[in-house]
């Protein structure tokens, strides 16, 4: 990006050329925004930005999840309604192998593997489960696959909840209490500086021990993971495998006729998508330092799917924007709206609205009660205004615009395609 240019004129020309590509523009804005975000948060809140940075790191997890689900739904066109199951598997894999929990299991032996190795182990375990689930079921037609994934997504958290203390085979998962005191990631040395409110210095050994006081470390970590994932998925998309996914998505029969092994290709999409979820789960467990089955319910799968579809299926920057938008709405707008509403009411002299009287429970709580409604309205309105998502993939957009006439003819012969 830091290309040397001799004059301001050629710099202009280079910039117009560079930003003509919408995706590049989005990436640039996102990267700059992500790097500046902690400072902005700190300044706007008067030095109390830690909570915002921590929330942003959580949003980063959802970005990672959305990028992963996009492989399954956006690239390969398979509907996955149980994606949170793989997220749970990743988080529990790290939680079990990096905490004291297993000392209470029939193994009587606790493990403390380092985070960096476990990132890849969690990826592998989630991918393996993706393959195990996918192998017998990927031959299913369209939405039946979605139901199988939905079922799997319902089963996994319940099994984690069941295998706690008192289960017939002993306490393997902490049950309803989940796993607490999971090890933070550690590094042999690390550079800290003004961004955590300290002078620049080398700390060794370093551990990410305090996510409340120093969320910055976790924020940087997720930023790096997300950037690496974007590179990886971008390369995947442009590879032979990526083209095969798109071929299967557009027309499975034609893809098979052209020599694409559709079952293997779909299995890979499923597995690789799951591996990102496992990856994200491992980070999530380390950041929260606790995992519980209630973090991985059906609603989480649906939320990730909303992020992918709303952002623009199949387009990585679009999906990232979708994940950030929904995270922003969920973690910031809906949580702060009641406070804003009541403070606005008292500033403009409508303070009586804040007091409860009869059925009226006060503006703050009334607005809080509207959360579901507001979220639902946002989803419906955005989808009605932009059925392709906020930033759909360019190629796909053109296909959809040009393809309408051809599809109508195709419909009559073959029944509706997709």
């Amino acid at each position, binding site marked *: 990006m830091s290309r040397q240019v001799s004059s301001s004129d050629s710099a202009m020309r280079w910039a117009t050329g560079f930003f003509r590509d919408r995706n590049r523009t989005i990436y640039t804005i996102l990267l700059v925004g992500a790097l500046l975000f902690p400072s902005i948060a700190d300044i706007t809140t008067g030095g109390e930005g830690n909570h915002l940075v921590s929330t942003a790191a959580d949003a980063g997890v959802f970005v990672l999840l959305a990028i992963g689900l996009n492989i399954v739904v956006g690239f390969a066109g398979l509907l996955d309604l149980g994606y949170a199951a793989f997220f749970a598997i990743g988080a529990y894999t790290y939680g079990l192998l990096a905490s004291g929990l297993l000392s209470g299991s029939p193994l009587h032996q606790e493990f403390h593997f380092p985070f960096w190795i476990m990132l890849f182990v969690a990826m592998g375990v989630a991918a393996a489960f993706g393959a195990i689930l996918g192998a017998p079921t990927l031959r299913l037609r369209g939405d*039946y696959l979605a139901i199988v994934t939905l*079922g799997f997504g319902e089963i996994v958290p319940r099994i984690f909840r069941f295998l706690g203390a008192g289960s017939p085979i002993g306490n393997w998962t902490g049950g309803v209490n989940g796993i607490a005191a999971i090890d933070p990631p550690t590094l042999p040395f690390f550079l800290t500086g003004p961004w955590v409110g300290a002078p620049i210095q080398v700390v060794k050994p370093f551990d990410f021990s305090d996510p409340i006081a120093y969320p910055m470390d976790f924020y940087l970590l997720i930023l790096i993971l997300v950037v690496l994932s974007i590179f990886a998925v971008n390369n995947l998309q442009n590879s032979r495998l990526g083209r095969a996914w798109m071929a299967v998505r557009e027309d499975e029969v034609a893809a098979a006729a052209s020599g694409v092994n559709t079952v293997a290709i779909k299995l890979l999409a499923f597995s690789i998508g799951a591996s990102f979820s496992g990856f994200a789960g491992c980070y999530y467990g380390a950041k929260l330092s606790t995992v519980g089955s209630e973090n991985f319910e059906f609603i989480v799968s649906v939320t990730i799917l909303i992020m992918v579809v709303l952002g623009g299926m199949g387009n990585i920057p679009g999906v990232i924007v979708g994940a950030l938008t929904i995270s922003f709405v969920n973690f910031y707008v809906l949580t702060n709206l009641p406070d804003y509403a009541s403070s606005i009411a008292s500033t403009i002299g409508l303070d009586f609205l804040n007091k409860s009287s009869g059925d009226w429970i006060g503006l703050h709580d009334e607005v809080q*009660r509207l959360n579901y409604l507001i979220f639902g309205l946002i989803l419906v309105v955005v989808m009605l205004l932009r059925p392709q998502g906020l930033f759909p993939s360019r190629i796909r957009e053109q296909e959809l615009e040009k393809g309408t006439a051809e599809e*109508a003819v195709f419909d009559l012969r073959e029944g509706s395609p*997709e």
Partner: protein
Amino acid sequence: MLVVLLAPKAASDLSLFVQILVIGIANGAIYALIALGYTMVYGIIELINFAHGDVFTLGAFLSLPLLGAFGLTEGKSSGVSVYLALILIAAIVMLLTGTINVVIERVAYRPLRNAPRLAPLITAVGMSFILEGIMYFWRGASPIHYPDLIPNPRIPLLAGATIGLKDIIVIVVAIVLVILLTVFINGSKLGKAMRATAQDREAAQLMGIDINRTIAATFFIGAVLAGAGGVIFGLYFNSVRFDLGFGVGLFAFTAAVFGGIGNIQGAALGGLAIGLVQAFSNAYYQSALTDVWIFAILILVLVFRPTGLLGMQVPER
């Protein structure tokens, strides 16, 4: 396999076995009523209508003020007039939920009929949130007591087991509604239009069928059944909550897939199956694992019979 698991239990305590069977059938009847709406909508426009479960809850919620308006109060009202009032209330609720569902289809699904497939799925999730939000705003988050209006005398069955009057009413109402629906779908002109539209929308249109009207009618009938289900649920369990439709809807949808989605009898059978598995697993095995069994059976059924129990083999599109 199920027979092997259940036979010894049945032999050891027949009374308990029959009792659980009754509970399972009654619960299954309610699931079946909701599953029908999922299966009809999926059959005709291939949409998993996530808002359907909440239309069911809305049925229960809408009937609450009506009960008051008709002067029905727990413990005081009795006799034939209660049943007549309840039938009238159910009819009003069914009309209301039907109309609401038609509006939902018009606003949130019809504009997206030619959009990418997942777009209406997301608006369905959005509508589900909106309906839950309305009910939450209206009645709050805590469970609401639903008046216990029907006396529940136990009628002896075989081996000392009994069946309550409520169980009988639930089962009879569900059976009657399923039969009416089957007759309607197979016999009436609109039913024929629905089947034609489900089979091939464009061809149906070329034959002069008004597609929009037919799809709206499908949503209407599905929601009518869901509304009836809501009232019955309230009378049977005497407690409702704004997010009830989420969990019940998930099982009803599972039931629809289980029986073969798009198939009316399949949905009824699936609902019954889910109700039975749930009742037996709760009573004989760990209730914490009940849902695991249900979804595991669902996955197994789909692996070995990819179109559900009664689903027809449709060629790959």
